[in-house]
């Protein structure tokens, strides 16, 4: 994988974007990054338990995807779901409170970090059994086609999910039935602690696309506008032609698989090389070099976002736990629905 270094020319997708949209995208990426850092601190302080999988390094994908979506489109994602929730407009207070296991959480403290759902914001999970959301996403697309609405389902999975059965079956049905869905593999190079060289029989995951009757598209993430454009084409194909697409985005996570993973399996110099190619820093550079923003202005923005996430942590910390009876709620629905 050839990585552009930090002084490489800015990609055209980024350099051609205006200041306002660049600043908006940067702010959203910054919000995700600071949210994740806040969550990591809360985890080390014992405020968050269970599993916590951070999205740091991959933010441009969630933000770029949001830019390509329409109001009624849906995201179906994995347990590494915080970035998508924030990009979709979920309240960071509710997201943080969910991880603290509080009543005010996104799903009332029932789901935790891995099960973020907010239906009306297009945040449709939040799935934690690797690959088992692929048929679910195909099912959402099946329903859209059945009902004749124009909602497109965008389903994210990791490179670690491409070998498991439901991925194959869900993509088979999506291709067979021409369902309006976009599958996006976020290839962050590791299936937990195992590098893709030891999990993938063929390095190019999109080489499977023709076998599923889908168009494939593969690229290294550079900036959110590139993601917007590439996914936008696939979303358009889904909406207008009811054709599914398999996209592979080469990306990198800067933290371990989860908070309990020190990520000692990385090659020497690998993390540094990817940090030098961080899309987040690239957008930061565009704001400085193309749009005249100063270090002070960017620092002020950062402080504002840090304050937002600190407030989210305070909100979560001071929120009440769920009521004892709440554990019996939402298991069975009474009557005819």
């Amino acid at each position, binding site marked *: 994988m050839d990585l552009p270094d930090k002084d490489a020319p800015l990609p055209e997708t980024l350099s051609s974007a205006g200041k306002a949209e660049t600043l908006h995208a940067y702010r959203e990426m910054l919000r995700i990054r600071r949210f994740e850092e806040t969550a990591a601190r809360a985890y080390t302080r014992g405020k968050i338990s269970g599993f916590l999988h951070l999205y740091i390094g991959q933010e441009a994908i969630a933000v770029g995807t949001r830019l390509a979506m329409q109001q009624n489109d849906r995201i179906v994602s994995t347990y590494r779901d915080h970035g998508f929730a924030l990009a979709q407009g979920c309240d960071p207070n509710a997201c943080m409170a969910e991880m603290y296991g509080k009543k005010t959480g996104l799903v009332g403290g029932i*789901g935790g970090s891995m099960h973020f759902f907010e*239906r009306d914001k297009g945040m449709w999970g939040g799935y934690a059994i690797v690959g088992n959301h692929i048929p679910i996403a195909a099912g959402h697309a099946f329903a859209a086609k059945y009902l004749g609405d124009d909602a497109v389902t965008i389903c994210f999975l990791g490179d670690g999910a491409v070998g498991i059965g439901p991925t194959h079956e869900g993509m088979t*049905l999506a291709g067979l039935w021409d369902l309006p869905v976009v599958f996006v593999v976020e290839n962050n190079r590791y299936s937990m602690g195992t590098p893709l060289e030891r999990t993938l029989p063929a390095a190019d995951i999109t080489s499977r696309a023709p076998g599923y009757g889908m168009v494939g598209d593969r690229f290294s993430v550079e900036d959110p506008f590139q993601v917007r454009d590439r996914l936008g084409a696939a979303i358009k194909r889904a909406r207008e032609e009811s054709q599914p697409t398999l996209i592979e985005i080469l990306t990198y996570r800067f933290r371990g698989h989860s908070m309990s993973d020190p990520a000692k399996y990385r090659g020497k110099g690998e993390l540094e090389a990817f940090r030098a190619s961080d899309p987040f820093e690239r957008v930061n550079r565009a704001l400085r070099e193309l749009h005249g923003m100063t270090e002070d202005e960017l620092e002020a923005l950062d402080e504002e976002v840090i304050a937002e996430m600190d407030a989210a942590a305070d909100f979560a910390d001071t929120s009440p736990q769920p009521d004892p009876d709440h554990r019996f709620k939402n298991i069975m629905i009474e009557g005819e629905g």
Partner: protein
Amino acid sequence: MPTLQIREAIRDAMREEMLRDDRVFLMGEEVGHYQGAYKCSQGLLEQFGEKRVVDTPITETGFAGVGIGAAMCGLRPIIEFMTFNFSAVAFDQIINNAAKIHHMTGGQFSVPIVFRGPNAAAHMLGSTHSQAFDAIYAHIPGLKVVSVATPYDAKGLLKSAIRDPNPVIFFESEMMYSVRGEVPEEEYLIPIGEADIKRPGDDVTLLCWGQSVPTALAAAELAQEHSGLSAEVIDLRTLRPLDTEAVIASVKKTNRVVIAEHSWPFGGVGAELVDRIQRLAFDWLDAPVTRVCYDDIPFSYAENLEHLSIPQPEDIHAALRQVAYRD
């Protein structure tokens, strides 16, 4: 009153519900052009078209998951498993998605879906095709589990299952699709969660469901004829939620219980019944509750070995005599 086979009652239930509600569709292997592996969907493709009678490739986890995803969008899928043995391949979708999504989304999504098909042993199909999933699915909070033994019950309960806002596991039987019985022409529903007294009696309560219902009824006949014992045969019809009230009412009348199960003994639905009976009617019992189950082994292909593993009317008759201290 017209008589129908169970397969026809199931077909009529699906047809009526598909006519009533455009959101209802049938999906599974061979349900359309082939008319159903056991002909439960005969004529439905012709009537409703490929949009609502959807043939799938052999992809149980795929189409179970598609059904769940569609249900989350407001559709009402009926997912046919050619047999519940193949639901093992879709087990993760059923227990981790169908049973959990309403709960883990804080009630934002519901999963109104029916998974239906034949369950338990048939005839000489070998170990992997001769399994009873009763206890396995009944164990999972978030699911309802129905098991039917007559055309009347099959139709009334399947219609309720399709209308139910929750995921419902609906057990049929390969051995019983041709069983005939009276089914009213006018519409009716049978509520999920209500047992049915298939034969009233006074001396012993005989609990059964699914394939064990005809076996239990035959055993009750033997007991009456040869032992002068009057068995009250109660068909549970629903395994989750269990109609504890109906069971306990009968136990308090007869003071003796035999449970006939076409499923394995370990951790079975019968074991759950024993627990409830001893907790709720301990002082009414005159004998230990007795269970007659499959042998606790994988099934064999050979006809004689298979026959020996399945409770027969004579085995249940012996159990009825035992709890009545007739030997």
